[in-house]
């Protein structure tokens, strides 16, 4: 049972344009969400996060939007750059316990073309 879903396995975007990566979740107990970027042969790298008390968080070219009623979040990258080509994972943390057990989506491979 996939509690965090990334329904697009891949996405191709031209350099300079906006990349939008989507993530849906089913567990109402999730109250903190994160995006990670992963290059081949490396571990995932934390990118940006958002708490359920917010609906938007911005960090430079990266913005995460959260729609709690729809149980949906998205990551916007503007403008996209070739170095953004990677696999992006969304992850969620429940509001129970203190162990920060992340549940990950299956990932979206972003390719930014010249």
């Amino acid at each position, binding site marked *: 049972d996939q509690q*965090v879903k*990334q329904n697009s396995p891949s996405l191709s975007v031209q350099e300079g344009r906006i990349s939008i990566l989507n993530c849906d979740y089913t567990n109402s107990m999730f109250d*903190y969400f*994160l995006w*990670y970027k992963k290059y081949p*042969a*490396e*571990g*995932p*790298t*934390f990118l940006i*996060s958002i*708490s359920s008390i917010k609906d938007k968080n911005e960090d430079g070219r990266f913005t995460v939007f959260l729609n709690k009623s729809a149980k949906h979040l998205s990551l916007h990258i503007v403008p996209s750059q070739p170095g953004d080509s990677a696999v992006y*994972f969304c*992850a969620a*943390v429940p509001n129970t316990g*203190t*162990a*920060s*057990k*992340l*549940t*990950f*989506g*299956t*990932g979206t491979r972003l390719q930014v073309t010249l």
Partner: protein
Amino acid sequence: DAGITQSPRHKVTETGTPVTLRCHQTENHRYMYWYRQDPGHGLRLIHYSYGVKDTDKGEVSDGYSVSRSKTEDFLLTLESATSSQTSVYFCAIRQGDYNSPLHFGNGTRLTVT
């Protein structure tokens, strides 16, 4: 750099043999995690630790055991490796308070033949 070292980086082993993967951190963080990454599944939590000798199971713990006898080392053991355990294994640490992001090592690619 979160100061996480995973060893070995690559390993090929035969079905039925025991395998131990090591995660070493240099910063004395309390929480450590083991995840596996597989196509179509993302990353899934195997076990985690919240202190020396304090561990708990994740969502895919069957066939795995862990030990943490020192703050800096978190070991993952496959008592009798199976082909379904072929995967990339990532160790992670939590550097701050609850809801701080996890920081990952560079992974161990394990192949069970």
